[in-house]
């Protein structure tokens, strides 16, 4: 501990005071001069041809400055009509047809939001309804209506996604396939075969801050966009391509976000708002209503088939998985979700024979995209539930079965590569111990029963990727860090400052952070995939070291010693042999440059690779390893499940800020509990019928366990800053299966459909009771 000053300390967020006083500005808190308010008219149909749009009345309404419809978009010289991060299947507004209830059809910019809303109601649209595709099965059906014909790709796609794509003439947006060994042989050699289907519904991120975007063109045609976005550089790239501009003519800025959880990745409002501002010739801002947020992006609904072959002593010999993900009307980042979901579909186990197919399917529903866990929570729900079914059938302790098969240090992953720096076993053992695995506690009432359940996880981070950082030593000896990482609550600004502070020996309160401004901060691929601490943290560390080296060289000349003999401490330098008095950074800069106003700039870049020099493939620059243990209480009369205690262990490499790590684990757990027990988007036909917080239930104080025990396992990663790696998605992923496993332990019923509603539990209990009665009648008869 003594080694570091601020690394490993639970320092509060730099912006804490602004956050508790309401002073921190979120995007919707700011108003540009001359700003117009935009509103979006959306499709009432799941799938329909647009016959005719008449915006005449709307345009005439006093206060309306611009109305944008397909007539403006088609053939426009200033911009293209299509965009999309992987597949260009989205349009600024609907062109020939609409593909889901909520698809943007037209937009209005007016001097007040009220006027814009009124104008929207004056736009007449005639539709000719088409048959709709409402789930993944329908999407795959023969003669299913097609959502998209031919789809183009962006000029430069993502490095990890060169192999993905739409299967023309079908609704298959992407197909991911992975195999290892020979599953058929594996099944033949197995003593027991288990086959199950698990489902997981679409869900909402429910960041409390809505989506906002403001676009403004200056007289030279430079476009600035402020947006609630986790990855501003991707937006810049997409907008530049869409609007035929070099990257230098597009600036994207993200302030602090009021939660993201994956929802604020990739273009959402930006193309439409920019096109609206282009037409209005004034800055335009759009902030979505809560209902519109629900109509913008969701978590993928999934149906997962798992077939597992096991030897009688509990070794998994073969596993076949098929994951069908419902991606809604547009690809968005779905193809990557299906890939990530596919990679880990067989779980964190060493299995000699694996066959994985992951299908991403277009349907006429709200598009699905990234959601904390990125497809892994869906496949984890399946394999971790099945692990307990297997253990029960083999009469083995689920902990033992997992231990027997667990992928630990040096183990071989499905892809054939060796997994390192992932303390799976330690996480599993610690999580189990934290809930006193193997003991049973007493329920609060007679009608209730308690039980415990486990789940493990492994997840990859996006690879390859790039993050760059700048650190500027200011003339007074303070420092400013420039990062493209968006702080959406996770505390990245603070962690980056801690790293710079530690490296430069400058007090934390003298470090400033500038984030997510594509004109100011160097490139960063994205704030997602729990990658920022590992990638950007390392880049900041390198940039700070770059400054230290410059300082050392400067000081070496003054002190007449070698640069390696210069010691940086207390915001200053001294020769290692104390042959001269120490100099503050401020004094050193003055002395060196002979004039006030000189500063030093350090830079750092981290680029991870997907292929090593020896040709070995790298799926992930680092692996998330974790395990959860849940204790639940089930009311046998109502079926209601309450999580009493929950332990979540994560290998964090090194906890740079233990408080933040624990917050990530507790917070992820609580969202995980919500998804496990109550959250789901409900459609009636193509209509989402619970697009609001009255009908879409989120976990509240009453639903949170008495105790959530975060366990930070620190197995230093050789490439992470101070050994650190990411953990943001760890806790959410195993929550649902850990809870379902605990439910079975408590009352003996297996739930295979999420969420685990009281009704599902009760009907399973009733069914079990009926079977018992049937059996006992039969045995009495015989």
């Amino acid at each position, binding site marked *: 501990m003594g080694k570091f000053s601020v690394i490993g300390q*639970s320092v*509060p967020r730099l912006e*804490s*005071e602004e*956050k*508790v*006083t*309401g*002073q*921190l*500005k*979120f995007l*919707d*808190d700011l108003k540009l001069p001359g700003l117009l308010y935009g509103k979006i008219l959306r499709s009432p149909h799941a799938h329909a041809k647009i016959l005719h749009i008449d915006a005449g009345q709307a345009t005439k309404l006093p206060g309306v400055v611009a109305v944008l419809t397909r007539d403006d978009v088609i053939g426009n010289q200033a911009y293209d009509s299509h965009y999309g991060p992987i597949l260009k299947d989205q349009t600024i507004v609907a062109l020939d047809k609409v593909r889901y209830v909520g698809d943007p059809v037209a937009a209005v910019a007016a001097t007040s939001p*009220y006027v814009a809303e009124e104008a929207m109601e004056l736009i007449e649209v005639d539709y000719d309804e088409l048959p709709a595709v409402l789930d993944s099965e329908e999407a795959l059906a023969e003669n299913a209506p097609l959502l998209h014909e031919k789809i183009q790709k962006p000029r430069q796609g993502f490095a990890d996604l060169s192999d993905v794509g739409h299967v023309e003439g079908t609704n298959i947006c992407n197909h991911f396939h992975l195999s290892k060994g020979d599953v058929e042989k594996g099944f033949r050699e197995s003593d027991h075969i288990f086959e199950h289907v698990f489902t997981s519904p679409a869900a909402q*991120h*429910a*960041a*409390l*801050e*809505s989506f906002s975007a403001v676009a403004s063109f200056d007289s030279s045609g430079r476009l600035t966009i402020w947006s609630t976005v986790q990855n501003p550089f991707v937006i810049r790239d997409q907008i530049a391509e869409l609007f035929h501009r070099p990257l230098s003519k597009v600036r994207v800025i993200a302030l*602090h*976000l*009021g*939660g993201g*959880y994956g929802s604020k990745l990739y273009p959402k409002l930006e193309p439409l708002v920019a096109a609206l501002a282009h037409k209005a010739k004034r800055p335009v801002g759009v902030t979505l*209503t*809560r209902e519109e947020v629900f109509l913008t992006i969701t978590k993928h609904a999934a149906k997962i088939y798992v077939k597992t072959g096991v030897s009688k002593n509990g070794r998994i010999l073969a596993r076949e998985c098929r994951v069908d993900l419902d991606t809604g009307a547009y690809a968005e980042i779905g193809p990557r979700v299906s890939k990530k979901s596919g990679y880990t579909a067989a779980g964190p186990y060493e299995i000699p024979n694996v066959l994985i197919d992951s299908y991403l399917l277009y349907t006429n529903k709200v598009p699905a995209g990234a959601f904390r866990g990125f497809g892994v929570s869906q496949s984890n729900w399946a394999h971790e539930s099945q692990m307990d079914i297997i253990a029960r059938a083999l009469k083995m302790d689920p902990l033992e079965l997992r231990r027997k098969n667990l992928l630990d240090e040096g183990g071989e992953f499905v892809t054939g590569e060796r997994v390192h720096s992932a303390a799976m076993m330690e996480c599993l053992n610690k999580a189990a111990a934290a809930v006193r695995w193997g003991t049973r506690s007493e329920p609060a009432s007679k009608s209730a029963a308690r039980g415990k359940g486990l789940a493990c996880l492994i997840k990859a981070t996006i690879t390859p990727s790039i993050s760059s950082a700048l650190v500027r030593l200011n003339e007074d000896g303070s420092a400013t860090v420039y990062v493209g990482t968006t702080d*959406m*609550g*996770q*505390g990245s600004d603070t962690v980056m400052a801690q790293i710079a502070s530690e490296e430069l020996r400058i007090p934390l309160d003298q470090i400033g952070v500038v984030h997510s401004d594509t004109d100011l901060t160097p490139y960063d691929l994205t704030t997602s995939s729990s990658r920022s601490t590992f990638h950007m943290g390392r880049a900041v560390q390198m940039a700070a070291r770059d400054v230290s080296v410059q300082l050392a060289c400067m000081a070496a000349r003054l002190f007449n010693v070698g640069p390696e003999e210069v010691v940086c401490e207390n915001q200053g330098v001294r020769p290692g042999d104390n042959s001269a008095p120490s100099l503050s950074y401020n004094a050193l800069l003055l002395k060196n440059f002979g004039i006030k106003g000189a500063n030093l700039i350090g830079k750092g870049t981290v680029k991870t690779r997907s292929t090593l020099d020896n040709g070995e493939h790298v799926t992930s620059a680092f692996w998330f390893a974790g395990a959860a243990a849940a204790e639940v209480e089930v009311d046998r009369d109502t079926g209601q499940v309450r999580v009493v205690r929950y332990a979540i262990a994560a290998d964090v490499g090194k906890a740079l800020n233990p*408080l*933040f790590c*624990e*917050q990530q684990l*507790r*917070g*992820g*757990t*609580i*969202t995980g509990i919500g998804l496990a027990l109550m959250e789901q988007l409900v459609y009636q036909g193509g209509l989402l019928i619970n697009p*609001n*917080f*009255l009908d879409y239930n*989120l*976990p*509240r*104080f*009453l639903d*949170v366990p008495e*105790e*959530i025990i975060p366990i930070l396992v620190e197995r230093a990663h050789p490439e992470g800053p101070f050994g650190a790696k990411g953990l943001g998605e760890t806790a959410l992923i195993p929550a649902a299966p850990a809870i379902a496993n605990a439910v079975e332990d408590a009352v003996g019923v297996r739930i295979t459909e999420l969420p685990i509603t009281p009704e599902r539990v009760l009907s399973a209990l009733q069914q079990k009771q009926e079977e018992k009665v049937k059996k006992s009648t039969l045995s009495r008869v015989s």
Partner: protein
Amino acid sequence: MKRAIQVTVNGGVHELSVEPRETLLEILRGPVGLTGTKLGCDQQVCGSCTVLMNGLPVSSCSVLGVDAAGNEVLTIEGLATDGELHPIQKAFIEHGAFQCAYCTSGLILAVKALLDQLPAPEEGQIRHFLAGNICRCGCHLEILQAVRSLLQQSQQRKEA
């Protein structure tokens, strides 16, 4: 048709002309110029827009400005005095009771109402009281800890 109203916000009197349909939240964030109060669900479910009106918590998204006329409103901006953070604000920082903090303004005011109304609440009462404030980052346990520390402080003050 606009109406003239007078509202006291954080001790300052505001004379405003508002449309009947304008909500207290719109008025606070617009003409009054205080953006610390946030719009969340727009349905009185999430609590992001909580302010205290005459000492009681209300959803400012669902109180009409004309109806707030003549009342005293306390927003998050009015809690700290003379640059000194309110004990609740300090406790929120100390216990890590927020991440993104979009819900924090509302939660801090809800906790203020809690402490004002319930001198020695039990755990269940605290959870019920705060149940209508959603925190999607999931800082519930840290918030509960902050509340407990504040209760302890007030207990100690009483004993002293």
